[in-house]
C-alpha cells in the first residue's frame, strides 16, 4: 500500500513538475546561448530595423523619416544597378563553380590511385586556404592591363591584349573567375564526399545493364547528390550576396562591380547615411530569406 502511494505521488509530481528532470546546467547553457544569440543577432537586427526608419550619421540625433528610406530604395537606380551586378555575379559564380566542382569531383572519383585522388583534391583545395587578401592581390597582378601576366600570355600566343579590370564589360567576369577559382576546392571536396557515398553496388548494377559514365551520372549520381547540391546552392547564394572584399579591392570601372554589399558599406561608412544603408541591408536580408525559402520549398517538393 505504501509502495502504491509512493508511485502515485511520484506520478502526480511528474505531472505537476514537468521540468523536474531537466538539468540546471542544461538550462543555464541554453539561456547563455539565447542571451548570446540575442546580443549578437536579435538586438542588432532590431536596431537595424529601427535605424531604417531614421536619418542618422552616428553623431547627431536620429531624425525619424518614416518609410522614406524604403521608398527611396525602390526608386534608387544605384540600388538596382548594384542588385543587378549582385544577381549576375551570384548566378554566374554558382553555376560555373558548382558545375566545375562537380566535374572535378567526378573526374577525381574515377581515379584508381588513392595518391592521385589526394594529390588532385589537395591541388584544387589550395586556393581555399589562401587568405582572400593574398588571392585578391595575386589576381590583381595577373589582371594588370600593362605588363600583367595574363596579357603577357595573350601576347605570346599572338592574341590581342585585354583591359580586364579596366573594362566595364570584363571587370565583373574577372572577379567571377577569381571567386570560382577560390571556391572550387571546397565545393569539389563536398561533391567528392557525396559521390563516395553512392553505393558501388548500384553503380556496378548500372554498369552491368550497359550504362556508361554519362548515364550513371545523370540517372544515379546526380539524383542522389540532390541534398548536397541543394546545400551548396543555398550556402553559395548567401555567400555570394554577402561577398565584400573581392569587390572592394578588385574594383572595376564605374558601377560595374559595385554589389549590394559594397553599396551598403558605402552608404554606412562613406556617405554617413546609416538609416538608408540599414534599409538597403533589410532588403538584402529579405531577398536572401525569400531565395532560401523558395529553394527549400523546391527541394522539399522534389523530394516528395
Amino acid at each position, binding site marked *: 500500500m505504501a509502495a502504491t502511494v509512493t508511485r502515485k505521488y511520484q506520478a502526480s509530481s511528474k505531472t505537476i513538475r514537468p521540468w523536474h528532470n531537466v538539468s540546471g546546467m542544461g538550462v543555464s547553457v541554453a539561456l547563455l546561448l539565447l542571451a548570446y544569440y540575442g546580443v549578437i543577432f536579435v538586438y542588432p537586427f532590431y536596431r537595424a530595423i529601427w535605424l531604417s526608419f531614421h*536619418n542618422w550619421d552616428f553623431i547627431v540625433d536620429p531624425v525619424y523619416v518614416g518609410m522614406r528610406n524604403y521608398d527611396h530604395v525602390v526608386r534608387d537606380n544605384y540600388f538596382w544597378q548594384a542588385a543587378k551586378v549582385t544577381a549576375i555575379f551570384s548566378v554566374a559564380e554558382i553555376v560555373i563553380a558548382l558545375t566545375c566542382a562537380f566535374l572535378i569531383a567526378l573526374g577525381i572519383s574515377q581515379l584508381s590511385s588513392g595518391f592521385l585522388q589526394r594529390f588532385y583534391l589537395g591541388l584544387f583545395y589550395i586556393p581555399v586556404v589562401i587568405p582572400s587578401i593574398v588571392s585578391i592581390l595575386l589576381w590583381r597582378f595577373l589582371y594588370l592591363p600593362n605588363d600583367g601576366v595574363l596579357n603577357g600570355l595573350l601576347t605570346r600566343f599572338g592574341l590581342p591584349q585585354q583591359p580586364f579590370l579596366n573594362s566595364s564589360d570584363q571587370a565583373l567576369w574577372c572577379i567571377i573567375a577569381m571567386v570560382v577559382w577560390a571556391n572550387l576546392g571546397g565545393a569539389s571536396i563536398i561533391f567528392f564526399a557525396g559521390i563516395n557515398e553512392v553505393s558501388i553496388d548500384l553503380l556496378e548494377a548500372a554498369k552491368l545493364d550497359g550504362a556508361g559514365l554519362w548515364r550513371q551520372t545523370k540517372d544515379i549520381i546526380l539524383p542522389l547528390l540532390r541534398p548536397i547540391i541543394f546545400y551548396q546552392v543555398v550556402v553559395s547564394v548567401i555567400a555570394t550576396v554577402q561577398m565584400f572584399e573581392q569587390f572592394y579591392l578588385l574594383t572595376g570601372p564605374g558601377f560595374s562591380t559595385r554589389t549590394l554589399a559594397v553599396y551598403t558599406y558605402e552608404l554606412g561608412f562613406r556617405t554617413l547615411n546609416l538609416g538608408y544603408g540599414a534599409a538597403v541591408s533589410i532588403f538584402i536580408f529579405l531577398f536572401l530569406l525569400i531565395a532560401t525559402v523558395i529553394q527549400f520549398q523546391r527541394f522539399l517538393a522534389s523530394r516528395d
Partner: protein
Amino acid sequence: MFSHSNRRTFLKNTAAASAATIGFGSTLRYGLAQDPTPEPTVAPVSVGEGGTEISIWVQDFGPIVTAYQEAAANYVAAGNDVKVTVQPIAFADLLAKVLPSVAAGNEADIIMGYTDWYVATDISRLFLNLDGLLGTQAELEETLFPTTLATLDMPEGSIYYLPLLAGARSAVTTYNGAMFQQAGIDATSLATWENLVEAGRELTVMEGGRMTVAGLSPVSAALSLVKNWVWQTGGEFYNGETGEWTLATAEGEASLARLIDLGSGDNPTYSYDLLSVDNEFDVWNQGKVASHMNGAWTIGVSEEAVEANGIPTPLLAEATNEVVYPEHIAVTTLSRRLADDDTKLQHCVGIVQELYKPESLIDTTNQYSGLLCSKALYADPKIEDTAFGPVSKLLAESVWPRAHFPRDHVANQAPAGVELDRAMRGEISIQEALSNADAYLNDQEQQARERIGHVNR
C-alpha cells in the same frame, strides 16, 4: 573511392602546398607588383613613460606618421610627464572608424582625418571647440594660410580643426621629369591648361594603334577638374544657401566635354586601354604616364625613375576667375572628452603646438611633397634645403592664396565622379552624366542638411 585516403596526410599535404603557394604569392606581391593598396595597419609606437597617457590616431602614411611621432617625441623630450601612443591606421579603416568611435566615446585624444569625412555631420558635436586653446582665428591666420581655415562649416564662428596638409588634387599637376626633360619641355613655363594639353599630346606614345604612354591623364581628377573649371569660367556648381548642386550647366558641360576630348579626340592624351581611376598611379610608376592630377603627395612616393615633380595646374586660357578648389585637407582634431580632463587637454594642446611648429614641419617636407597649411613654415629659408621643400613651397604659395571651398555637405562624392567617368568612357552622354551627378549630390546634400538641421554658418 577514397578508400586509401588518410585525412591527416591530406591535411598536411594541403597545408604544405598552401604555405608554398602563399610564399610564392607574397614574392610576386612584393617582388614584382607595385601596388598602391595601403599596407596593413602597423603596430602603434609609444613615446615616453609618463603618468598621463595620450593616444593619437593617424593615417598610415609614412610622412604623416613620422610628423606626429616626432611631435610626440619632442614634447616628451621637453620634460613632459606623458606617455604618447601613435597608432597608424590605414586610410579606409580610419575613415570607417572615426565617427563610430566618437559616438561610442572611445576615440583617440588626438585624431588626424580629412575635412570631407566630417562635412556631412555636425562638427561641433564631433570634436572639441578649439577656441582659446590654440589661438583665435585671427591668430591662426597669422601662421596658417587663411583659406585653409574656411573649408568646413564654422558653427558660431568657432574652429574645430587645425588644417595640416593637402594633396590638392587637380589644383596640382604631377609630371614625369625625365620625360619632360627628354622632350625639351619646361613644365614650369606652361602658362595655360591648353599649353599643358599640348605638352601632353607631344608626350603621348601610340604603338600599333594602342596607347603605350599617356601624355596627360585626368581620369583620377575628373570631378575635381570640372568643379575647378566651372568656377574659373564664371559658373557655380553649388549654392551654399539652398544646398543645390548644379553641375549640369553650360560651364559644366563644356568642362566635361573638354575631358572627353582629351581621351577620344583626334589627338588623345589618355586611354582607358592603358589606365583607369584605380590603377593610374601604378601605370604612372611604370613610366607610362607623363602627367596626372592625382595630388601633390604622389611626387614624394613615386618611383625614382620617373623623376616626379609638380606644378600648379595652369588655369584655362579663357579663365575669368583665378580660383582653385583643392578638395579635402588633412586636419588635426581633439576629442571632446578632453574637456573633462584639463591636464590631459593641456598635454594634447602642447603636442599639437609642437606638431605645427615650423621647425617640426620642415622635417616633414623631407618625406612629404604635398602642400602644408602653415604659412610660417614656408617663410623659413631652411625649407629650400629639404627633399621636397621647394616643390611644396611652390605649390602651396600658388594654390592656397587662390583656394576656395564650397563648404558643401556631401561626404562621399565618388559616385558623382563615377558618373563623369562613365561619360568619359562613352557609356552615357555628357548631359546624363552631369544630371546623374547632380541628382546624387543633391540627394546627399539634403539628407545631410536634414541631419545637421542646417543653418547657414
